[in-house]
Structures are given as structure tokens and as C-alpha cells.
């Protein structure tokens, strides 16, 4: 009796090794489009480049130029500071998302409407969102200033994208508007997974709403906090498309909205200095990869169950 027949009749089946071949197409695609570019970037950061042509092996010289020589070292520090501000802002957005999710969790009517309303911006491409908000925030013909003028708040009218503080703040606010819906959904799903008996027991014991939120909801949504923190960190350090769409590749005004993603783009493809510096761009990309991987692992470790 053949093995397959035995398996079909409920006998002990042995999986044929041929089954591994089914993973091959996915592995080839993964190798070509993920592993190969990462390995190439790793390698490129140790070579001198002339345009897109790889020259001689120069060891760590690209890293040295990037982190020790002006004006590039200043650009890196400036961009990192903006990425860190964006990460801090994403944490504040998470707190807000958690509060909104907790409120929605209490709702019995209209919850689905609010979920959809908060999530709607997430369905739009960040590039589209960026261009739309650029128009809304325009100092001359933007809808925001027109609205402020119409409601008698002309004093608050502002060239939102023209000064470093308001430009960075505007970009962060638009990013938060775009991403908060996803965080709310994740928190809400996590809250809905908490057994209602726990809440009932707490209420019977006389716990206040705040006490329930802090002592039950918060610790039991730890996995959601963990994943959203890691995604927030990666998102903050990967920021490119939104700033590019709203402000362009140089992060104006005078690098006031520059990020590591924009700096990498300018280095690798010619915006920073007019000509491509693939080696420097690769060195920056590799540094970003290492830092993001390390911080993500650290965050996962911090949120590991049993540490609280």
C-alpha cells in the first residue's frame, strides 16, 4: 500500500522532502529582493564610488567621513535629532490612541463608525497625504489659514511649513493623523481579548474606572504596546515619504525637517552634493539598520512577559 494511500486512510503519514521545494520560489524572491540588496549595501559601504560605479576598497573611510567630517557629521546629528523627536511624538500618539481605544471599548453604539473614521486616513498613501496637507498648510491659499481667518483666529494664521519648529511639528501632526487609526485598532483588539470576567470582578471589588484602566487594561495590553512601540521606532527612523512629499528632499527650511531617510536619499542618489555617493549612502543605511535592529531587540526584551 502506498504511503499516500495510508495517509489518506488516517495512517501515520511521512511528509515527502519534495515539499520543501514549494518554498523555493518564495526563497528566490526573498533572496533577490531582500537578502541581495542588504548584502550589497553592506558591501558597498566599504567601497569608494564614482557615481554608481564601485571603485577601490576603502575600509571604514565612508563611516569616518559620515560621522566625523563636517558638514556631513552635523547633518547626521541634525537628522537623528529629528528622528528622535518623531519617535517621542509617536509615543505620545500611542498614549492618545490608547485613551481613545479605551473610550471606544466602553462604547456600545457607534464604535464601528469611530473605528472606521479613525482608520480612514491610514488607507491613503503617505505621499498623497503629504501633498494634500502641503496644500492645506499653504500660507497663501491653504485651507487651514482660511479656516482660522474665517472663525476670527487670524492671529493663529501661520506659514506652517516655513519655520523649523512649526514645519517639523506640522509634519509630525500629519504623520500622527495618518497613523493613529492603526494604533487604535490594535489597542482595541487587544482590549477586546481581555476576558470580561476580569472587569466584572474588578467592578464588584469596587475598583474605579481609572484603577481598572491602569491596573487591568494597561498591563493586559502589553503585547500591543510592545509591537506598536517597535513599529513606532522603526517608523520614526524610516521617515521619508511624508517629509519628502510635504517638504522635498532637502528637509527645508534649512534642514529643519531633515531625517535620516532624506539624508540617505540625498547621499545615495545625488541630492546632497549634486552627485551620487553610493558608498556614503550605504554606510548610513547600514548604520541605520544596525541601530534599528538593536533598539527593536532591546524594546522586545523590555516588554518580555515576567519582567514587570
Amino acid at each position, binding site marked *: 500500500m502506498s504511503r499516500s494511500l495510508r495517509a489518506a486512510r488516517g495512517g501515520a503519514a511521512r511528509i*515527502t*522532502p*519534495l515539499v*520543501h*521545494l514549494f518554498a*523555493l520560489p518564495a526563497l*528566490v524572491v526573498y533572496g533577490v529582493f531582500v537578502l541581495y540588496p542588504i548584502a550589497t549595501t553592506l558591501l558597498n559601504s566599504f567601497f569608494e564610488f*564614482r*557615481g*554608481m*560605479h564601485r571603485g577601490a576598497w576603502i575600509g571604514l573611510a565612508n563611516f569616518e*567621513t559620515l560621522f566625523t567630517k*563636517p*558638514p*556631513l557629521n552635523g547633518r547626521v546629528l541634525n537628522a537623528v535629532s529629528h528622528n528622535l523627536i518623531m519617535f517621542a511624538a509617536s509615543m505620545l500618539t500611542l498614549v492618545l490612541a490608547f485613551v481613545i481605544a479605551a473610550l471606544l471599548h466602553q462604547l456600545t453604539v457607534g464604535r464601528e463608525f469611530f473605528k472606521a473614521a479613525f482608520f480612514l486616513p491610514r488607507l491613503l498613501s503617505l505621499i498623497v497625504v503629504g501633498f494634500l496637507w*502641503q496644500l492645506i*498648510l*499653504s*500660507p*497663501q*491659499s491653504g485651507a487651514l489659514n482660511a479656516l482660522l481667518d474665517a472663525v476670527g483666529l487670524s492671529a493663529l494664521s501661520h*506659514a*506652517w*511649513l*516655513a*519655520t*523649523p519648529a512649526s*514645519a517639523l511639528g506640522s509634519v509630525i501632526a500629519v504623520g500622527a493623523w495618518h497613523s493613529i487609526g492603526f494604533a487604535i485598532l490594535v489597542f482595541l483588539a487587544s482590549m477586546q481579548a481581555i476576558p470580561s470576567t476580569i472587569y466584572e470582578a474588578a467592578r464588584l471589588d469596587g475598583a474605579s474606572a481609572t484603577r481598572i484602566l491602569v491596573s487591568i487594561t494597561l498591563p493586559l495590553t502589553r503585547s500591543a504596546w510592545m509591537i506598536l512601540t517597535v513599529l513606532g521606532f522603526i517608523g520614526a527612523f524610516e521617515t521619508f515619504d511624508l517629509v519628502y512629499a510635504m*517638504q*522635498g*528632499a*532637502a528637509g*527645508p*527650511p*534649512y*534642514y*529643519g525637517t531633515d531625517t535620516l531617510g532624506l539624508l540617505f536619499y540625498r*547621499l545615495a*542618489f*545625488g*541630492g*546632497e*552634493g*549634486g*552627485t*551620487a*555617493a553610493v558608498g*556614503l549612502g550605504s554606510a548610513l543605511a547600514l548604520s541605520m539598520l544596525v541601530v534599528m535592529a538593536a533598539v527593536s531587540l532591546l524594546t522586545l526584551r523590555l516588554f518580555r512577559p515576567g519582567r514587570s
Partner: protein
Amino acid sequence: MISRRALLGTALTATSLSALAMAGCSAGSSDGPVSVYSWRQEDGDGYRKIFDIFTQAHADITVKFEPFNSTDYDQILATAMQSGDNLDLIQLRPYAGGREIADTGDLAPLDDMAELKGFSPESLAAVSGSDGKVYGVPTAQNALITLYNKEIFDQHKIARPSTWPEFLDACAALKKAGLVPIAQSGKAAYLLTILYQAVATSALSPAFGKAVDDGSADFTSQEFRDSVQRVLDLKPYVPESFIGMADDEARAMFAQGRAAMYINGDYRIKPLLDLNPKLQMDYLASLPEATGPVQLSTGVDGAYALMASSPRLEQARALLAWMATEEFGSAFATTFSRLSQVPGAKAEDPLHVKLAEEIATVGTENPFARLGGGNPDVKAEFENALQGVLGGQISADELFAKTQEAYQASRQR
């Protein structure tokens, strides 16, 4: 049961076949149209019509115009060149950007192309490699100018200024009349270099330009400071929020008569007339400090080059040679309302006819046009720092110091 060795063999065979299939996809042939890569996405229809003139006379050659977004073009081109795509003709940035590509050896030299003989040495220098060989056929010529609304000037009885102090007086009078004197965007820093070149070229002596080329220029000198001061003097006369304003908005302000002047390149004349066909415009070149001749900031704005590895080398070269003829130059000038680099090519609209005549007598290539390239880049450092000064983030002294540092670093490479 299949053995591990057989499994590995099958996997390797499958991978090899996939790789071969991918390689096969990119393999080229000498048949098919001559591809023309360009960053002029908005000119697609115009170029196709122009190339129809060529293909009607050359029945054996077909042309495929492939335009990309200007800001992404360099990246797309570099990736295509790196991945071994079968490119034929590519649009080439002039000066440092093109020189970087020419120096890789990927382009075919064009020194023996008879059609290039009549081009000016300056325009050929802008498309030459570090080896001194010519690698491109220059197409467009830029003129960086101050466009003004004649009706607004007449309405407020403001005479056409002929010196820089008169220009500032005109701005003050317009502002006093409640108008925005200059519709200017400073959001993209490169616009500030255009602004600088349009108004300050007259403030730099020919000796400064020579010093820039031989490596002895001083960007902290009083001469350079005075030239930049012209841009800083304009701050009261541009919209207060101009650093956060996009160029489209500035253009619309001028076209709709909400501002009296707009400073940019001659290539904006047609888009402005598209926005308002009744707009009565004239232009100002860079004005002298006192009575004297003006200077018109000009330069090469794009060229086309031949890839040395083109599988259709002969056909592509024939097309490129045609692009250096008066027939192409005139078709280019009339189709796009631009100035052609081809000798003898005539512009049609009155402003471009006037510009072409003035360029012949007072056209000046601003040194910044020749300073691009490298890390850090002098032009990029300058224009971003200028944005910082205008936005109050850094001082003018820092701007000069940063420009000089970048210049010295560029000379050391």
C-alpha cells in the same frame, strides 16, 4: 524517497533557470526603437512630434521617447545604467552632473560629430568630461530673469528700472501701493540660486568667475558678500511666508496679477501665459549698481548623450546628430517656447527673440553653474545656507564661511 543530493540538485537547477530567465528578460537586441531617456515628462507630446520629423526622413529608424519625473530622473538613470539596461540616448545634466557620468566611460565621445562644429565653446564645455572630450549635444539654453507685469508697472507709473538702486525703489513703490512686489518661492533651495543668479550676476566681476575656475575664489570676500546682499535686500519685497510657499503658488500670484514681478528662468514664460494668456510681461536682466550695461545670467540646460553600449549605436548616433541640426533646434524652440543651443535655431515668441539677441551681447555664465558636484557640493551648501539666512536660522557670516569651506573641499578632491 528523493535523496538530499537530488533535492539540492533540483533546487540549484530551478534557481539557475530562474536566473537565466531573468537574464534573458534583460538581454537586448539591435532591433526596435531608439530609446531616448529624458527628465522632461511634460514635454512628451512635443518631443514625439519633433521625432516624427526625423523618422519621416529615416524610415528605417523608430524612436521611443521615455520621460521620467525630473526629481527622480538621476536615480532612475543611474539604476538603469547599473543594471545594464539597453539605453541608447539619455538626457544629460550639464556641468558637474553630466561630467560625473561622462567620467565613468559609459558615454560615447562625440568630438568627431560634424554637426557640433558650430556650437559655442562654452556650451560644449558644459557637456564635456574631465578628459576634455565632448559627450553631449546641448539642447536648451536658460536665461535667468526678473519677469515683470507691464500693466501693473504702467498703472502705478513705475518706470522700467535700469540700475539695482532703481529696482529697489520700484519694489518700495509697489509695496507702498499695497502690492506684493515679487512673487517668490524659497521652499526649494535651488530656487534661491536661481534668484541669486538672476539678480546678482552683475555684481560679480569677470575676475571672480576666473578665480572660481582656477581655485582662488574667496566666497568670504566683500565682492561676493555684496552680490549676496542683493538677495537679502529683496526680503521685504517677497511674500512674508515665501520660505513655506511652493513655486506653483508664486507663479499663480504673478500670473493672476497679485504680484508685480516673478524671478525665475525663461522656461516659465510659457507656463505663465498658459495660466493667463492676457498677461503683459517683459523681463529685466541682472542690473548694474550704477549706469552701465546689464548682464544676463545664462547657461546650458540639458543635453543628450549617446550610450557607448547602445545596441542600436548607428541609429542612435544618427538621431543625436540630427538633434544638433538647425531643423531640430528650431522645432525645439517653437514647440517648447525655449531657447535652443543649436546655432541658427530661431525662437518665435517676442520675449525669446529679445532674450536670444540680448544673450548674444550680454549673456554671462554664472560661476555657480560650474560649481556643482561632490560631497559637500558648493551650490547645495550655498543655496541651503541662503535659505537659512533668509529664514533667520543662521547668520550671513555663516553662509559665507560654509560656502567657502565647501569650495575649498571641492578643490581638494
